């Protein structure tokens, strides 16, 4: 039923490109481990905007740049040069951090470990800036026995139950959930559509699928499964595909994406 509801609406499924930042450069991690240099964040951001990306996400922008001031300057520059929405996340520990990045011009902040350690930060941020400013990033690993929620960039197993945690963050005021399926990340064999859809059906906010995309067909599978938005990184940074190519493909397949 939710499938048909979505399709009579005018809201386009979103294609989002994520950039992991380390020391001012975009890097690509493989299975949350090895890193590869992919280029300059501002250059890539403007290129993706030209290609028709719907939104951009900058992760670890604060965590890995030693001086927060440098990170804030980068965010201010992005806000000034970019004409589409963007999210920043990684290393935002206090409400002051969140305020600093939103005031610098970020449209949204993504909280992951901080949301787990201090969940009231979600409420506090929502109260001041509104739900639309907070994306809670949830890293999940599907094993043969369980769905495990991780924190600290996939390094620490938490005691959170996936569905209860997603419900809690939505109740606390998250505007969206970014669901990264760690078992899919870097594998290149597509999103975990079944799990993402199940999470999406269980909460009142949009859920962004992340982890596993390497081809346009992976976006098609996700959007056919009524997923609201898909995030990818490597397939675009490596220049295997442009956002435009992926969207034109989706459009031809009958998915009402925004094309340019």
């Amino acid at each position, binding site marked *: 039923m939710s499938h048909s509801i979505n399709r009579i609406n005018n809201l386009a499924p979103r294609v989002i490109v994520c950039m992991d930042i380390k020391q001012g450069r975009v890097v690509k991690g493989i299975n949350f481990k090895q890193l590869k240099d992919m280029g300059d964040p501002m250059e890539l951001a403007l290129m993706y905007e030209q290609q028709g990306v719907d939104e951009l996400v900058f992760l670890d922008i604060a965590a890995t740049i030693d001086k927060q001031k440098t990170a804030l300057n980068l965010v201010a520059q992005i806000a000034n040069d970019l*004409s589409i929405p963007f999210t920043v996340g990684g290393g935002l520990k206090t409400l002051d951090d969140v305020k600093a990045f939103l005031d610098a011009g970020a449209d949204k902040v993504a909280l992951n470990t901080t949301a787990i350690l201090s969940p009231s930060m979600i409420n506090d941020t929502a109260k001041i800036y509104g739900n639309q400013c907070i994306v809670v990033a949830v890293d999940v690993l599907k094993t043969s026995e369980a769905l495990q929620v991780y924190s600290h960039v996939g390094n620490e197993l938490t005691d959170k139950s996936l569905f209860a945690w997603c419900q809690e963050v939505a109740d606390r005021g998250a505007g969206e959930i970014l669901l990264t399926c760690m078992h899919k990340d870097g594998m290149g064999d597509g999103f975990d559509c079944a799990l993402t859809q199940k999470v999406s059906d269980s909460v009142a906010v949009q859920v962004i699928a992340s982890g596993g995309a390497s081809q346009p067909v992976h976006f098609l599978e996700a959007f056919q499964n009524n997923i609201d938005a898909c995030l990818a990184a490597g397939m675009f940074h490596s220049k295997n595909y442009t956002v435009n190519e992926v969207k034109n493909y989706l459009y031809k397949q009958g998915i009402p994406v925004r094309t340019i």
Partner: protein
Amino acid sequence: MKNVLIIDTGSGNLTSLGAAIRKIGFNPIRQTEPSSDWFQKNDLGDIDAIVLPGQGRFGLVMQQLKKIGWVQYLQRAKQRKLPILGICVGLQILFESSAEDPNVSGLGWFQGKVEKILSPKSPMVGWAKLQGGFADQQYLYFVNSYAVKNSDFTVSTTEYGERFCASVQSDNIVGMQFHPEKSAKIGQNLLKRALTGSLI
């Protein structure tokens, strides 16, 4: 160069809006309160167009506008036919009231009320296609949970769970429920046209 006044009610960041106004070749002037000079001279200052804020709660934005004396300034600007653009909550405050804060009245320039949208997911976040008016069939970026469902001044609508006003207009007063400053090239184009009073 045209001076565009951005009214800052302190409820959201205005970096992108200022940047978008600069990109279309205008000079953004961000103020939290009207200068005392404008009051004394019963004047609008050296302002060519006005943008009403796009973020925050209906009630907080309105209370701030009333407290600081912006309402009188806006009335004067309206009488003198200055282009006035309300973005998102800025559109909503042009109406009489909102379900978000039922005890606070809006500017009431347009008849009607703001209601919660019964959408599949809330808040609505993303690019939605407009129907009717300027930018017909174009995608613009929306971030909202509330909207005006019916108005005599509707120019375009969009749909997410239910249909609502994407833009409204009466002479030089334009309201956009979407965020033109976040809507790439098409957004800048609409911004420029709204601020020069040349949207049809």
